[in-house]
């Protein structure tokens, strides 16, 4: 039996994902983004603990327009990764494993991320 049409490798441009697959893929993308943010965060921690001046420098730095964007990307990624991760952990213990609940919890992850991002922006800037 020939199986010519099976993909032999993951071509990201040829795969059409259902919502639950998209949730999983974004979990991976945000994971990579958070990984890239590690040295930046350690640097900020180091500066903030060095001296009062360093602490204030970090505060000033985080108020620059470009850094606000970076911050929103990092915090947004973290919140998404957290919510989608909790969803996966619940599925590990067999909660929400059927198709209908998996789709509903996917929307809950998106909604929770959007709401918590807005709350972050509100607390941070108002």
């Amino acid at each position: 039996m020939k199986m010519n049409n099976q993909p032999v490798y993951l071509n990201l441009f040829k795969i059409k994902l259902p919502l639950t697959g998209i949730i999983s893929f974004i979990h991976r993308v945000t994971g990579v983004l958070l990984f890239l943010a590690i040295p930046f965060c350690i640097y900020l921690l180091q500066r903030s603990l060095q001296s009062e001046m360093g602490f204030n420098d970090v505060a000033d730095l985080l108020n620059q327009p470009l850094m606000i964007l970076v911050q929103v990307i990092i915090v947004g990624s973290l919140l998404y990764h957290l919510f989608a991760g909790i969803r996966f952990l619940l599925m590990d213990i067999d909660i929400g494993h059927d198709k209908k609940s998996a789709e509903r919890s996917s929307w809950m992850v998106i909604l929770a991320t959007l709401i918590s991002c807005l709350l972050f922006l509100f607390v941070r800037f108002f």
Partner: protein
Amino acid sequence: MSGFSAWLTQRLSAIYMAAFIVIAIIWALITDVNYTIWQSGFENTVVKLAVLLFGLSLLIHAWIGLRDVLVDYIHPIGLRLLMMTLLALFLLANGFWLLSILWGNS
């Protein structure tokens, strides 16, 4: 690390980090953070150990996660091994950097 132990480590580190982050957010919301509070907080040994454990969890979590990403998308075995080595060195360097901040004299 492979199979079940990687699976379990990924989840245990995730649970610790999730709890840490929730507590950190609550702390930040109820505290008017300034340098004195921030700096003296990081002199507390319990805080240091909790942050160090967070750092270790993060590095091992990132190692397992990024290794899976490399295995899925990087197919030439030599390039994959090279990237895994660089990944491991990068994570270790970050770990020692964090350690030096928490217990260093700087």
